[in-house]
């Protein structure tokens, strides 16, 4: 008899609490936009901050509330944008895939002074010269502030210079923001040629300062049949809206500076 009472009492209490809980859930329900949750699931979840919002959750909330476009997630690329657009019921703009590119090949022949402070690029520009300790004032300092900023393990310091693994890079731009020398650009993915130099010194001076830098001879500019290469501020710059990835400029470069990615030659 006692056992039966206890079981009944517990069943009764359980039923009452269940009813109370289900009632509370209805009355105090916090409306959640289902779309926000679904978008959060689609986003990569790296919380890289490339969109400018606090993590992927912040980005999803911004997209749903209309503060950000459906293509906000740079690492997610077009595939993510299309899925997000579907949830939001709009058309996604197809964006060109971009990757980071470091405009320095290293090779500075020396340093202006001995720097032995904090091993961080920004820290190195806060004392001594604002342009850093390298003889070439534009050159990469090699302490890897960009490496620290990258959430995708796509940039590394190799032989004292930052280099991008363009297949791992998602083009989120965090490295570019972290570089105190503003050496990192976003360029289209899949181009055959790139010029890793941004030195502003004249040719003869560059030869002294750097073993690899652009001397501004303009052979690339003359050889380019599409007007895509121009020498600006004593270094060659490629206009990727005109470049057809033929690779002719790289063959002509007397410093062998212009890098050629054989996979993408057309």
């Amino acid at each position, binding site marked *: 008899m006692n056992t039966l009472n206890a079981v009944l009492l517990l069943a009764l209490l359980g039923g009452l609490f269940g009813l109370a809980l289900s009632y509370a859930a209805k009355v105090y329900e916090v409306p959640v936009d289902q779309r926000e949750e679904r978008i959060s699931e689609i986003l990569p979840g790296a919380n890289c901050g490339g969109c*400018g919002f606090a993590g992927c959750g912040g980005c999803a909330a*911004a997209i749903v509330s209309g503060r950000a476009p459906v293509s906000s997630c740079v690492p997610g690329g077009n595939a993510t944008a299309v899925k997000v657009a579907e949830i939001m019921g709009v058309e996604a703009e197809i964006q060109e895939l971009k990757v980071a590119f470091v405009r320095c090949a290293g090779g500075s022949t020396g340093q202006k*002074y001995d720097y032995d402070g*904090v091993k961080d690029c920004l*820290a190195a520009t806060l*004392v*001594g010269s*604002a342009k850093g300790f390298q003889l070439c004032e534009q050159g990469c300092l090699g302490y890897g502030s960009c490496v620290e900023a990258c959430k995708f393990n796509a940039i590394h310091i190799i032989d004292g210079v930052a280099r991008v693994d363009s297949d791992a890079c998602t083009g989120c731009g965090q490295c570019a923001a972290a570089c105190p020398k503003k050496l990192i650009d976003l360029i289209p993915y899949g181009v055959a040629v790139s010029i890793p130099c941004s030195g502003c010194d004249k040719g003869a001076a560059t030869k002294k300062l750097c073993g690899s830098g652009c001397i501004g001879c303009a052979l690339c500019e003359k050889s380019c049949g599409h007007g895509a290469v121009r020498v600006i501020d004593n270094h060659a710059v490629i206009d990727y809206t005109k470049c057809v990835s033929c690779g002719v400029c790289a063959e002509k470069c007397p410093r062998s500076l212009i890098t050629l990615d054989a996979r993408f030659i057309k």
Partner: protein
Amino acid sequence: MKLHIPGVRIKHTLPDVAPVPSLTLPLPEKLYMPLSMHIGAPAAPCVSVGEQVYKGQKIGEARGAISAAVHAPVSGTVLAIEQWPSARGGECETVIIENDGLETLSPDLCPHPECENDADALVALVRECGIVGMGGATFPTAAKIDSARGKMDTVILNGAECEPGLASDYAAMLERSDALLHGIRLLLMACGAKSAILAIEENKGEAISLLSGKLPADGSVKLQTLPSLYPQGGEKQLIYNTTGREIRSGGLPADVGCAVFNVETAIAVAEAVESGMPLIERYCTLSGSAFAQPKVVRVRIGTPVRHISEAAGGYETAPKKIILGGPMMGMSVYRTDMGVNKGSNGILAMAESGSESERQTSCIRCGRCVENCPMGLMPNYLNLFTRKNAAEKLQEYHVFDCLECGVCAYGCPARLPLVQQMKLGKARLRAWQNAEKARKEAQK
């Protein structure tokens, strides 16, 4: 009386400097006048290349309220106006003057007796003469007086010598004691304050005995002897140690009714009234193991560092490191062809670089940096947050209150580069704040 804000007694690795007699150096052929040698907007050049200038003639006009005029320290010709390395780091617009050796005075210079009792006229004169705080921080003096007029009761004169091993303030107090007392009277009048405290560290005995005999009879100026602790010359530390008043984080001395002026600033104010001479000269201590003998020199602003060390007798051994300013807060420079500025209170040349980076180990959480910090900060955590780029935490732990005095790094048994981490932390927090602001605006 009351507890002193924490500080450390710095072991003097630098020899004691005899403050007097100070040495007046032969003038250089070329002077480099940076147009940005004060806190605030850089001055706008008001002379052109090739123009003849007189000693004391204005060559740079103050741009806005927080800025200071720049004057020609010698007579001669303007050779160029271009970007040149600056003693404050980086490059800034600089007027390069070729000295003609004639020392022709500008005809505009004249005594200003009308400023003795007219606060507005005095502030205008101080602004016109380009006077800035000469303890090293170089805040425009006219702006300081203006921001605090009528709000304060006490003017504090900083004769504590901002850094150990320097004797520039000491020399100024001994050699220019009459001008100093005149300057104090003028500053009291301009600020509308009732009393002044002349704060001198106890290791400057000659200055204490000389000045205590010269104080005005009405008792408006009190002399206060302070222990030789570092950073005694910091504005907030000095106010606390003399009056017991504390300034809250982000506040100004005027909030507690005080204004702090360096003794050399007061002398410059007196000189402006007595002869109309703008700020073109200052005391500078030469010290460090590369010099045969440490000494105090009078230098014209804009004299290249190289010229000063050569004219003062040259180096005994080739220096490995040259620091502008004092041993604790000075900046090491990599070029000696830049002109000294209004805040250059010392030039240190070290025969050895003295860098400790090879001995760096890990933080052992001894807390010595926390115990010593004169601002009550926690450098151990700030170091961590900087390394982790945790900007919000840096803000929460008040990294901007750090005055980069170097006491934390001085006492650190792990030899961590804490001051540079604070500098980096401030830069990171500033970048984060700008990004936040931009984001908030974009969201609107």
